C-alpha cells in the first residue's frame, strides 16, 4: 500500500485581494487513490481544486505531479480532468461532441474518437444519447455526460467539484455508489470536492478536511468520524454531544469527570478537555441495569434509526437507536448503558459553551 505519492501539495497559499483563502495547505496522494476535499462553503476547497487544475495561480507553494513541478504548465497541458459543479457542458454541441471534445483536442483519429466516446457513454450508462442536445437532458443525465466528458481523454487525475450539488437526495445515493464503482473500476486517481460528509465518506479512501483555508484533519473516513481531531471537525460532522471534562490520574488509572458523572477512561491527556459522546454509542438499559438515567425529551423518526434527545443532569444529548427496538415514549424516563472507552472521545481543548 505504501506507494510513492503521485501528487504532492506543498504549503500552498492563496489570497484574493486581502482575503486569505488557502493558508499553507500540504498533503499528498498516491496513484489510484480517491481523496475527498471536505469542508464548509468558503473553506477554499474549490480554489484548491482550481489551483491543481491550473485554472488559478497560487501566491506561494508548489504542486508536484509525478515529481514534476506544475508551476507554469497551462491547464490544457496538464492532462487532468475536471468535472464542474454546474457541469459546464457546451450548449452548442450535442452529447457526442461534448464527450469527444477532449479527444479531438488531443488529436485522436475520427474512428478512435467514436469508439472511445461509445466506451465512456457505456460506462455512465448513456448509450444512445449521442445526438441528444444538451438542453434536452435532465439533471442526472447532464451530470453523467459531464462525467463521461471528463473521463473520455483518460485523465491521469480526475477532479470533481461538488458534482452532486444539484441532484436531489433520493437520486444522490444511487449516483454516489455508481460513481464510486466507476472510479474503482478505472482505478482512477481522483479528488472529490464536497461539503457533504456523506458523499465524502462514501466515495473516498481518505478525507482531507479543510477549514478557513487550513487542513483540519486528514485520514480515512472511519478515523475522521470516530476520532475527530478537533471540536470543529466534530461539529462539522454533526457530532453535537459535547461536554466539559477533567482528566485525572488516580493510582495509575485515568478517570474523567463530566457533568454526567465520573468514568474510567484510558487517555494520555490530563486536565481540562472537551468530551464528545458519539450518538450511536449508547444502548438501552432498564430500571435495574443502567449507567445513565435521564428523561426522553424528543424523539424523531429517521427511517431505520430514531434520534432521541435525552436530558441527563441538565445536559441535552442526542442518541441514535435502531427504530425496530422497543423505544420509550416522549416524557418517559430512559436508562442507558455505554462503554466509555468506545463511545467517548476527547479533545485537548477546554470546553466552551459555544464554539467560537
Amino acid at each position, binding site marked *: 500500500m505504501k506507494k510513492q505519492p503521485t501528487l504532492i501539495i506543498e504549503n500552498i497559499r492563496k489570497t484574493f485581494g486581502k482575503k486569505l483563502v488557502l493558508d499553507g495547505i500540504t498533503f499528498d496522494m498516491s496513484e489510484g487513490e480517491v481523496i475527498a476535499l471536505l469542508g464548509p462553503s468558503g473553506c477554499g476547497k474549490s480554489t484548491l481544486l*482550481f489551483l491543481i487544475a491550473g485554472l488559478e495561480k497560487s501566491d506561494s507553494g508548489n504542486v508536484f505531479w509525478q515529481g514534476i513541478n506544475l508551476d507554469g504548465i497551462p491547464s*490544457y497541458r496538464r492532462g487532468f*480532468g475536471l468535472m464542474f459543479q454546474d457541469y*459546464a457542458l*457546451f450548449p*452548442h454541441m450535442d452529447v457526442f461532441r461534448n464527450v469527444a471534445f477532449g479527444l479531438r483536442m488531443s488529436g485522436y483519429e475520427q474512428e478512435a474518437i467514436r469508439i472511445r466516446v461509445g466506451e465512456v457513454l457505456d460506462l455512465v450508462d448513456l448509450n444512445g444519447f449521442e445526438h441528444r442536445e444538451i438542453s434536452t437532458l435532465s439533471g442526472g443525465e447532464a451530470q453523467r455526460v459531464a462525467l463521461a466528458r*471528463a473521463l473520455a*481523454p483518460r485523465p491521469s487525475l480526475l477532479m470533481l467539484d461538488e458534482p452532486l450539488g444539484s441532484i436531489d437526495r433520493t437520486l444522490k445515493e444511487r449516483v454516489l455508489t455508481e460513481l464510486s464503482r466507476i472510479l474503482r473500476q478505472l482505478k482512477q486517481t481522483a479528488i472529490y470536492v464536497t461539503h457533504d460528509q456523506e458523499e465524502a465518506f462514501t466515495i473516498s479512501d481518505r478525507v482531507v478536511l479543510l477549514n478557513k483555508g487550513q487542513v483540519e484533519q486528514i485520514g480515512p473516513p472511519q478515523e475522521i468520524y470516530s476520532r475527530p481531531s478537533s471540536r470543529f471537525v466534530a461539529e462539522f460532522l454533526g457530532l453535537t454531544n459535547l461536554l466539559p471534562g477533567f482528566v485525572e490520574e488516580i493510582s495509575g488509572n485515568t478517570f474523567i469527570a463530566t457533568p454526567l458523572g465520573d468514568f474510567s477512561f484510558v487517555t494520555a491527556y490530563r486536565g481540562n478537555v472537551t468530551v464528545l459522546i458519539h450518538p450511536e454509542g449508547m444502548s438501552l438499559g432498564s430500571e435495574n441495569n443502567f449507567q445513565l438515567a435521564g428523561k426522553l425529551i424528543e424523539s424523531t423518526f429517521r427511517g431505520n434509526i430514531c434520534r432521541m434527545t435525552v436530558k441527563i443532569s441538565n445536559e441535552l444529548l442526542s442518541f441514535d437507536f435502531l427504530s425496530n427496538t422497543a423505544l420509550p415514549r416522549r416524557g418517559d424516563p430512559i436508562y442507558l448503558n455505554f462503554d466509555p472507552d468506545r463511545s467517548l472521545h476527547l479533545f485537548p481543548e477546554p470546553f466552551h459553551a459555544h464554539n467560537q
Partner: protein
Amino acid sequence: MPTLVVAAAFNAFLGPQGWINLVLIKFFDLSTPPIHFTNTLFAILIAHVFYNTTIVLRMVGDFWSHLDPHLTQVAHTLGANRWYTFTKVLFPLLIPSIAAASLLVFIFDFTSFGVILILGGPRFATLEVEIYYQTISLFNLPLAATLALLQLLCTLGITIVYTRLSSRLTQPLYLKSRVYTQERLIGWRSRIFATIIVSFLILLLVTPLVSLAVRSFTSLGMGRIQTGDPPPGLTLDYYRELSINRQSSLFYVPPTKAIIISLGYAIATVILAIALGFPAAWALARYSHAHINRLLDPILMLPIGTSAVTLGLGFIVALNRPPLDLRASPWLVPIAHTLVAFPFVVRSLTPALRSIQPRLRYAAAMLGASSGSIVRFIELPLVGRSLLVAATFAFAISLGEFGATALIARPEYPTVPLVIYRYLSLPGNLNYGQALALSTILMAVCAVGILTIERFRIGGIGEF
C-alpha cells in the same frame, strides 16, 4: 433601412407628390397639395420615430424578455394586481433600459443627417446639416471644424452617460442570459408585447415603404414640362431612365455601377468591422473588471456619438496629406463605414461574449484546448448568432450610410444613397421618379443582403 430610403419613402407617402396629397388633390380638385409635410418639424419628427421605435423596442423588449418571470409571479402571489405589478415591479426594473434607449435615440437624432437634409429643408437645418453646408458648399473648414468639435463634446458627454447606464443594464442580464435559460425566458409575455407593437409598427413602418415602391412604378403624367416624363399609369420608365444619361452629366453614374460600388463597400465594411470589432469585444468581455475597460468602453463607443458628417470632415482634414493621403483611395469609404459600424459590432458582440460562462472556457481548457482552440471551438460558435447580427448591422449601415459618404466619396464613385440624393435635389417629376426607383432598388438590395447574411451558418448555430 438607409436614411435616404426612409426619407424618400416618407416623401412618396406624404410629400407634395406623395400618395396622400395626390389623392386629396384628385378628390377635391385642389391646385396645390393640401398637406405640407416636407420642410416641417412634423416630417422630421415622424421619420425619426420611424427609425427609433425599433431601437427602443429592441433594447427595452430584449431586456424585458430576459427578466425573470418569477418576479411577476411572486408579485401576483403577494397580492399585487397587474397594474400594480407593472408600476411597482416591472417598470422600475425597466427604467435603466428605457433610459439607455432614450439616450441612444437622443444621440442618433442629435447627429441625424440624411433625413433632415431631405425632409427638413433650410428652415430646419441642424448642427449636422450646417457642418455639411459649411464644408461642401462654402468650404469653410475652420467653422465646420468648430461646429463639429462642439457637437463632439456634447455627444461624448451623452455617450459616457449611456455606457455607464448600459453597463449597469448588463449586470443583471449577465446573471440570466445563460444560454440555457435564454430561450425559455422569451415567453408569451414578450410575444403579446411584440404583437401589439408589431401591428402598430406595420402601420408606421410598412406603409411609407410600400408607397415608395408602388410610387416608383407609377407615373401620374402631371406637369409634362420636362421631356421624357412617361405617360400616366403603371410604368417601368423610371427604372429605364436610370440608365440613360439624358443630361449627359459629367457625374452621371448608371445605377448598376452605383449598386456594385455600394455592395463592394458594404462587403469590405462587414469584413473590416468584424475583424476589428471581434477582438475589441473579446477584450471588453474578457477583462471586464479591468480599470482600463472603464475608459475603453466609452472610447469604443465614441463613433456612435460622433456624427457621420463630423467623421467625414475629420477624414477630409486628417487624411489629405502624406503619409496618409487616402482621399483618393477606394478604401477611404469602407474605412469610414467601418468606423460608423464599429460600435454596433462591438455592442452586439460584447454582451454575447460576456454571457459565456467562464466555466465553459475552463472546461475546454481542462480538456486540452489552448486559448486559440477555445476561441475557435467554444467562443466563436457560441456568439455565432451575435456575429451574424453584427455583420448585418455593418452591412446595412454601410449600404445606407449617407453623411460621411457625402463628404468623402469621390464623385465618380458614388454610392446608391448619394445618387438618390442627387436625383432628389434636382427638380422635376422625372428626377423624383428616378430617386424613388433607385430608393426602391436600394431597399431591395438591403433586404436581399440582410437575408443572405442570415442564411450563412457559422459553426453550429444552425442548431440553436
